[in-house]
């Protein structure tokens, strides 16, 4: 296409969400959102968790049926036409491509097959392979998104898989690309590279909407920012005129309190790992000869790209997996038979990564979930019988203190929102005043208010004298909270010498700090 024509159309609207609304039961998830996307534009969709971003995008892509409003997409002639609601196929045909946070690739097929799958009839797949390959290579050249085509996707890195997902959308002639938290699984360098490529593609006429929590990248790489709060669009700003504070205020509706981390003198070691090794199903699920010491009154942060042994490390400290070699020491004493019960007894409070899977029994009540780790306490059960009245009183007090909101303490815990489930877990953990706290991705998926609450509680525990092991994929969070920072890569820990984003980012990518180029 001649660039002159592109310039002409650069302000043209390619997508219009016209008063979209969606209700789930009593919750109005999206409330009359109106949004225009222009040709060649990168629009960031920002909002707290539960603000309705993903619901909105799912309506755009036809996964959800809007209760009200409609989606309009420009055809080749530039005229906006309504999209039939609830038909992902129609969205695809209209040139909308969506890359979800969790990839939908067949791991045993190579990248090329994955790209062709679904857009080519199965029986012609083999015959057209060579032509298709040439086309994909052309797209790779133009977009700068490069991925090995003949290697099974299962062996590709996360960044490469994401590129395959995007290539798949581009192969289907997507003119509008929706990316749901595209950088959640990338190193800072990979994320920057991705946005550079996106920039290149938008110059080719592609329009991009990306959902993100990270203010930094939103400010750096978008042209316009739309902020959602409680399902409503509360602001739309040109990125050039926006600043971090202003956007944060739009997202939460008020200024977020800054986190003050006072300097404290660390005490005796409360948690030690000595030569801990664990062999998992893959290298990314293993630990090799880990040495780590967490002292009282300090927060040790573990940064790293997802899937580099964080899960294995957390499993050892929470007692779910027993190391094959090495020892776990709590307060200087080795834990003889480390299992969850022993760890709880030794005074380890655990905030699990997957709170729905490991944190709560969703079908049981909020009150029951609050006492699930203390069934042997006389306050909870006597002679094998639950002390219903005490449990209830205890739960009511905790719910008040930790501001757990929902349909009540007798309601099933699964009815709580993600943030409130996390508050329930915080209440359970901090109520016992543990000497060691393991917090694995404690703010993932939380809105800013709930995340700030988690940070406040962790700092409070540190001031009280607890040692905190904070595992997080959010480098900014580690930088904000941790006294000392380690980077985990391929099941090994390396202490970060500096607190510089750049240097830590390179370590996360597997390059030792000294060898950084």
């Amino acid at each position, binding site marked *: 296409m001649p660039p002159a024509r592109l310039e002409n159309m650069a302000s043209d609207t390619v997508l219009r969400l016209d008063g979209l609304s969606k209700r789930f039961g009593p919750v109005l998830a999206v409330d009359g959102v109106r949004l225009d996307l222009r040709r060649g534009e990168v629009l960031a969709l920002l909002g707290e968790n539960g603000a309705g971003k993903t619901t909105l995008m799912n309506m755009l892509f036809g996964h959800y049926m809007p209760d*009200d409003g409609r989606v309009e997409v420009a055809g080749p002639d530039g005229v906006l036409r309504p999209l039939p609601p609830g038909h992902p196929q129609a969205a695809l045909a209209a040139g909308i491509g969506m890359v979800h946070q969790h990839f939908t690739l067949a791991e045993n097929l190579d990248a090329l097959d994955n790209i062709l799958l679904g857009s080519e009839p199965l029986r012609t797949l083999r015959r057209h392979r060579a032509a298709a390959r040439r086309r994909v290579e052309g797209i790779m050249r133009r977009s700068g998104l490069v991925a090995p085509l003949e290697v099974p996707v299962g062996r590709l890195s996360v960044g490469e898989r994401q590129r395959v997902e995007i290539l798949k959308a581009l192969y289907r002639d997507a003119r509008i690309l929706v990316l749901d938290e595209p950088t959640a699984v990338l190193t800072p360098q990979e994320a920057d590279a991705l946005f550079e490529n996106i920039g290149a593609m938008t110059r080719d006429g592609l329009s991009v909407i990306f959902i993100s929590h990270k203010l930094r990248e939103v400010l750096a790489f978008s042209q316009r920012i739309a902020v959602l709060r409680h399902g409503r669009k509360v602001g739309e700003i040109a990125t050039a005129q926006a600043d971090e504070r202003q956007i944060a205020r739009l997202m939460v509706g008020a200024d977020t309190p800054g986190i003050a981390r006072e300097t404290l003198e660390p005490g005796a070691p409360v948690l030690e790992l000595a030569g801990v090794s664990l062999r998992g199903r893959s290298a990314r699920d293993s630990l090799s000869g880990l040495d780590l010491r967490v002292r009282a009154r300090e927060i040790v942060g573990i940064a790293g790209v997802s899937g580099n042994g964080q899960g294995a490390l957390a499993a050892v400290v929470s007692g779910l997996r027993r190391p094959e070699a090495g020892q776990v020491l709590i307060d200087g004493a080795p834990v003889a038979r480390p299992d*969850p019960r022993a760890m709880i007894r030794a005074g380890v409070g655990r905030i699990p990564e997957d709170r729905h899977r490991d944190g*709560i029994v*969703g*079908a049981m009540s909020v009150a029951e979930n609050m006492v699930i780790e203390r*069934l042997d306490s006389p306050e909870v059960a006597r002679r094998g019988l*639950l002390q219903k009245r005490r449990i209830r009183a205890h739960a009511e007090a905790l719910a008040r203190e930790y501001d757990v909101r929902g349909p009540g303490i007798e309601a099933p815990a699964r009815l709580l929102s993600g943030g409130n489930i996390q508050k329930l877990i915080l209440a359970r953990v901090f109520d016992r005043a543990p000497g060691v706290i393991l917090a694995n991705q404690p703010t993932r998926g939380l809105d800013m208010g709930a995340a700030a609450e988690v940070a406040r509680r962790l700092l409070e525990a540190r001031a009280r004298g607890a040692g905190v092991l904070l595992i997080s994929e959010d480098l900014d969070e580690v930088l904000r909270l941790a006294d000392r920072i380690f980077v985990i890569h391929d099941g090994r820990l390396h202490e970060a010498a500096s607190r510089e984003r750049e240097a830590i980012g390179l370590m996360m990518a597997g390059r030792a700090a000294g060898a950084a180029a």
Partner: protein
Amino acid sequence: MMRIEPREAPGRLLTLGVPVLSALVALALAAIPLMLAGAPVFAAYGEMARGVFGSLFAFSEVLTRTTPLIFTGLAAALAFRAKLWNIGAEGQLYLGAMAAVAVGAGALDVPGWVLMPLIVVLGAAAGAAGMMVPAVLKTRFGADEVVTTLLLNFIVLIFVQMMLEGPLKDPMGLGWPQSAPILDQGMLPQLIPRMRVHAGLILALVLAAVAQFMLARSVWGFRLRAVGENAHAARHAGIGVNRTMLSVAAVSGGLAGLAGVSEVAGLKGYLTADLSPGFGYTGIVVAMLAGLSPAGVVVSALFIAGVFVGADSMSRAMGVSSYLADLVVSMALLSVLVGGFFARYRLRLGPERPPGRGPGQASGKEQGHG
């Protein structure tokens, strides 16, 4: 177009109403084959009702039939609540019955107040032991208990036949493959003179109440529910998942064993290889119909026993096949499964709706009450 969406919290009315509605739907559907068989539908159902409520004797027969179903229904309900799929209640029933005749049919000639509890305890222990085998295989080696418990049923039944031809065979039995009768003082007493309903019913009702209480109020019940609802979270919280599974297996097997005890020591007096017309399997239906609630098991056992007894008398009076009972029971199960689905999900028809006023708002009101 049709869409299926989850309901957030099924209300109490829905959870209680679905099984009742399903039972009625099943009875209504059964009218179709009844008509095809050429029977006048209302008269046939009248006969059925008479077979159940027509006389004290009729109802006592229903209660007699209810008794083993409560035991096997409880066995399935408790195990299923822990996601332990015990399909082996039939085999455990026979193990319990075999233990009952082994100790009760003359091996020990002791007074009834010793013998009767002994029979009950040993019968339960035998059933529990029978369920421990697949439970250990599951917790140790990860063997699928659906397969092992199901296959054990056949092994136990063949073992029973072997024993009835061998050590347990009644020397006075004229060569029939049956055990010697349980001594009179070992038999569970009858509740009403000249009727067959026996003290096993009382035991079943007491155990259902105990199970209901334990499930809701005891630490054991807490662990069972936690393991069944989310084993990952239970393990993370320090609950011994395997230990809980094994204890549930023992209780479930024991309850199924008691079904066998109550049939031989309460009703038949001696053991034959056709003691149970599939009470173990029907117990699964009873439990599902009851939504896996112990209290509900009593009601659904009564319903299913009523269908069986009623269908028997209907078939005698109207000349239709008594297999109709099986048909009603299976349709009740199907309707309760379908009904359970609708309790959890709602169906939406049509892609377009007038804006503003959707079913979502109706559900909002529903939740306001709930």
